[in-house]
């Protein structure tokens, strides 16, 4: 599969070339649905949000200035649509201390050190049950953590792209990502550690 670059695709799209549109939706529609799912409670709403994203993108083609990547621009439109549809977005940034830091004694050592299980799953990172468990755990995270973890770890956006999509600072992005990853790890710990 030859992946055309953004500028070329956009040019063809403006000219009404449906093949360019098909190429874009094949690449991004499933990602947009997954991302929208982090905002809305009902899965079918996520599909609606992703379709609305395409309508808005097509109508706003001439407004795309190429300052961000096409992907960032699409996710940003999707975030705005999803925020309206879901109204779940509290946009809260955790400011309290990391909960993990409560697990240490006054001298800074672990009160109850982590059980060893990383090696057990290191060779099974494509295990369908574990992957499902992790994706379910991501959906249980607080709103913005869920969005940042989905964009970074599930969909592979860069830190800068996530900041642009969610209009948050780099420092906030980092806190949300780490807190989210820690939350998912804790849920996995309860599942795997209990075996």
């Amino acid at each position: 599969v030859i992946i055309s670059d953004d500028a070329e695709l956009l040019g063809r799209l403006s000219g009404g070339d449906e093949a360019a549109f098909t190429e874009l939706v094949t690449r991004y529609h499933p990602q947009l649905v997954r991302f929208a799912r982090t905002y809305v409670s009902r899965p079918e709403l996520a599909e609606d949000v992703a379709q609305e994203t395409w309508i808005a993108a097509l109508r706003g083609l001439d407004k795309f200035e190429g300052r961000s990547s096409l992907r960032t621009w699409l996710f940003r439109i999707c975030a705005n649509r999803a925020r309206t549809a879901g109204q779940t977005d509290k946009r809260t940034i955790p400011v309290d201390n990391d909960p993990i830091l409560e697990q240490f004694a006054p001298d800074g050592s672990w009160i109850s050190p982590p059980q060893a299980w990383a090696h057990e799953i290191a060779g099974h990172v494509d295990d369908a049950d574990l992957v499902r468990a992790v994706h379910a755990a991501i959906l249980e995270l607080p709103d913005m953590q869920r969005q940042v973890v989905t964009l970074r770890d599930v969909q592979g956006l860069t830190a800068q792209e996530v900041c642009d999509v969610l209009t948050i600072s780099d420092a906030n992005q980092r806190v949300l990502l780490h807190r989210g990853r820690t939350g998912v790890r804790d849920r996995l710990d309860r599942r795997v550690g209990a075996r």
Partner: protein
Amino acid sequence: MSILRRRSGLVCRDAVSLIGGYLDGALSPKDRRRLEAHLATCPHCAEYVDQLRATIALAGHQAPPVLEPQTEQALSELFQRWRSE
């Protein structure tokens, strides 16, 4: 613990508070060296990092995205409506 502390200058709590930046490549070279020195001698913190790494790896695995035929059809209709606007 006192040996660990002297070797790396970090107690476990401090090491864990650096892990977020470490996994995101955002630590200063000095903090990264201090954390890596701690991880080399502390199995608990090393396990914790490995667990986060495994979590991230699992999150990145998803079924290859497939467009359902009915979705493809809906999107195609959407495109044609836009083109005739």
